[in-house]
Each structure stands twice: as C-alpha cells, then as structure tokens.
C-alpha cells in the first residue's frame, strides 16, 4: 500500500504521519511537495495537519489552490481514498471535497489535549474494524476546529451517516462539556457522500503507540489501509 503525504509550506504533522504509516504500519510512503503534479502512484492521499501558508487568509484556503490539489481533487473524484487531518480537514472543506467550514473555536483558545471520540458508523473504509459506538482516545491540537455548516447540510450529513466521529465523554455520551471547540452536534470528523474522503480534526497519526498516550489511532489508519481501495470505481 503506497501512501502519498502532501507537504505544504507550513505543514507540521507530515512526519508524524510518515512515522505512523511507514514505521508503525509498514506502508510505502511518498512525501509529495505541494508544487508537484505527480501523485507518484499513491494508492491513497493523506493531507497532514499544520499551518499551511501560515493560515493566511483562512486556514487551508491557500493550500486548496496549490498545484497538487488539482490532482488530489481529481484523485478523490475517482473514488480513491483521501484523508485530511486538522489543517488537512480545513484544506478539504476549502477545496469543496467536503461540505461546511471550520470556524474559530468558540472559546478562542488553542485546544491541545486528549479527546474521546465515539465512532458513529462502521460503514466506512475508515472504521471497518470497529463497532459503532466504540470509543477512541485521540488528541486534538487546533484553534479553528469548530465545524459549521448550514442546517440543511448538517441534516443531510446526519441522515446519510456521513458523521464518522463525535466528541464524547468517557462513557460515550455526547455532551456540551466535552465539545472542545463548539462544533455543531459535537462533530469531530465527516466523510463525503461517496465515503472515500474523510476529514477530521483529531490526530490519529499522533496516537499510534502507548508511549504517546494512546494507540487508538492505529485502528483508523489500519482500516484505511485494509479497506481504502474498496470504493474505487
């Protein structure tokens, strides 16, 4: 399985992702500079976290117009797997591969902590080896992770089962107290209708060993590797 990790100027989780996919999961990894027009034969694309272009204008907005994004959008439109984490999620919404937008956290603080995520669907290539309702410990690190979309879009996401992860408490309850950023319905991650594009604010690539506080991120990345090519076509 060959993973293409897109590197924008200002990406800072690209090497965490490389470590997770290569050293932990044994994948072939290609680091792809944002000016490239060659996805180097990647089977799936990972958009890492960070502060692409220093978050100028809006988080992810400049990166969404990087040369490589034309190829990534085409790749995604072919039904091939694309996953964006944190700033990668912001790039996906700015590229219109995912609906909605990520607003400033309602409390205005940069939130950097471990969160509990509840898996909302097992019917996705990202959560195949988990049960609906399973809880994962995955850290967040963002100032603009407050997921917003208008009511119709939110209703469609909910009705189609496109909400993949929600912030929950340790018992799996979805409460305002554990919502770290003000996201509508405690949304932490969504996928597109076809199910091949996932965006999430929490960082599974930073939760790949017990020494890091959690190894739960492995479940998501492993599901992607094992089932990522099931939608193509």
């Amino acid at each position, binding site marked *: 399985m060959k993973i293409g990790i897109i590197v924008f100027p200002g990406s800072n989780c690209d090497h965490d992702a490389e470590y997770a996919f290569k050293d932990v999961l044994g994948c072939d990894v290609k680091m792809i500079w944002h000016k490239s027009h060659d996805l180097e034969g990647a089977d799936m694309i990972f958009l890492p976290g960070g502060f692409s272009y220093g978050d100028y*204008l809006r988080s992810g907005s400049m990166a969404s*117009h990087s040369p490589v994004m034309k190829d990534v959008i085409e790749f995604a439109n072919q039904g091939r797997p694309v996953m964006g984490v944190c700033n990668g999620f912001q790039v996906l919404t700015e590229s219109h591969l995912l609906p909605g*937008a990520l*607003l400033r956290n309602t409390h*205005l603080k940069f939130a950097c902590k471990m969160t509990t995520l509840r898996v909302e669907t097992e019917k996705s290539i990202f959560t195949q080896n988990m049960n609906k309702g399973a809880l994962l410990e995955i850290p967040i690190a963002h100032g603009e992770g407050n997921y*917003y979309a*208008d009511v119709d879009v939110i209703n469609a996401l909910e009705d189609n089962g496109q909400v993949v992860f929600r912030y929950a408490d340790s018992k799996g309850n979805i409460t305002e107290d554990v919502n770290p950023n*003000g996201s509508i319905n405690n949304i932490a991650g969504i996928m597109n209708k076809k199910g091949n594009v996932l965006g999430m604010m929490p960082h599974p690539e930073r939760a790949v060993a017990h020494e890091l506080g959690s190894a739960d991120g492995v479940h998501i990345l492993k599901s992607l590797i094992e089932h990522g090519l099931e939608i193509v076509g």
Partner: protein
Amino acid sequence: MKSKINVTLKSSILDPQGTAVEHAIEALGYNGVGSVRIGKYIEVEFDSSDKSAVEAQTKELCEKLLTNTVIETYSFEVEE
C-alpha cells in the same frame, strides 16, 4: 483601478472574536455598545481601467479565493 473589499462573517454565524472585543469595550466603561463583529478588509490593484471588467473580476476572486461563501459575505467598491 483598485478594489476595496470588505469580508464579514454571515450574520447567522457566531463571532467569538467580536464577542470578546465587545466585552473588552464594556470593561473600558463604555455603555450602550451593542454587538461587535470583526471582518477583513482587502485591497486589490488592477492594471485595467475598465470598471465593469474590474468589478466582474473582483466578484470572481471573492467567490473563488478571497471569501468562503459558506461562512462569509462580502461587499466591495472599485476606486478609479
């Protein structure tokens, strides 16, 4: 010609930054101050002297890059 563009969050969207500034204004002792909203101001210079072409291009740039129409609205004027 120059386009002067104002970008603001849609009125339906909570602006926590504006709310924080509103509280700071109250803390300074000013009474009677209502809601505060924070936006962006962008100036773009064009070589063209065709006003309607500049307006059309500004609109296109606002839709494609300068604003995110999911959360923001914009207005602009073209200065000769």
